[in-house]
């Protein structure tokens, strides 16, 4: 077998692939189900943002309207909605929901929201990592990392799954809501 020399382009493409491998591996280690990951790096650019969408669905299957707003190898901006939380919120505001139920749900919501807020405040250090906007009865989750920090040691996609991992136990407290 002869030598197979690598180009500089090959090598600069290695890092994003390995960031994705790390994010998948981390996610798999937390017991999440993942699709197979094709490592066809010679013929395909590594779309970190597309993999981030796949990872998001592994952590939060209920995430909908996932949208990539901006993406490079070194940063990305993802937006999504969480149908379960939105349904929960609609029920809290629905006058048809019994008053006591609404009150209990609102208290639970307040607890969840405070924990998320605390996570954001603790982790963000002033940087726009995760932003949650709330309009009408819809939350939009916006995760935004652009060249933040040292992406060699702390790649954005890995930050992303670490964030999802920290959000998961908080959002687990959101009860399943069915329209009645």
């Amino acid at each position, binding site marked *: 077998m002869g030598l197979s020399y690598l180009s500089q382009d090959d090598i600069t493409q290695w890092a994003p692939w390995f960031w994705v491998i790390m994010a998948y591996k981390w996610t798999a280690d937390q017991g999440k189900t993942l699709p197979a990951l094709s490592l066809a790096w*010679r013929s395909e650019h590594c779309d970190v943002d597309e993999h981030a969408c796949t990872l998001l669905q592994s952590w939060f299957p209920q995430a909908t309207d996932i949208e990539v707003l901006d993406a490079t190898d070194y940063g990305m901006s993802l937006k999504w909605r969480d149908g379960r939380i939105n349904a929960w919120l609609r029920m809290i505001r629905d006058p048809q929901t019994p008053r006591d139920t609404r009150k209990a749900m609102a208290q639970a919501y307040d607890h969840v929201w405070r924990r998320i807020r605390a996570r954001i405040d603790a982790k963000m250090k002033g940087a726009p990592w995760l932003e949650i906007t709330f309009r009408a009865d819809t939350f939009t989750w916006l995760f935004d990392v652009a060249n933040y920090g040292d992406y060699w040691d702390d790649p954005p996609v890995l930050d992303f799954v670490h964030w999802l991992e920290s959000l998961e136990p908080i959002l687990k407290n959101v009860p399943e809501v069915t329209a009645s």
Partner: protein
Amino acid sequence: MTLRLSRRWLDGAVPPISGTAKLISAFLSEETVEDWSAFTFHDAQWALEQLVHYAALDYIYDDLDEDGSPNSDNDWHHVLHVYEMTAALRTMPAKCPPDIPFY
């Protein structure tokens, strides 16, 4: 440690291939990862460290001398052998030391 390894070699036991080496081999062979238990998170970190961090990109163009022979002054030269070495790992595990010898 060295003695123990030597005994293993003399006994003809197949030395273990590290998860890092297996992952690098899978990556360079463009395989599809389905079994996420085949390597650890640290293996993936270390593989990136081995492949990217250690090497200086500036040297890559100087790997061959004008006469086509390998440029022995090039720090990259050993790294560029990675593909051949990891391919060899797959076919001749008994000839590879436990840690992948990149340089």
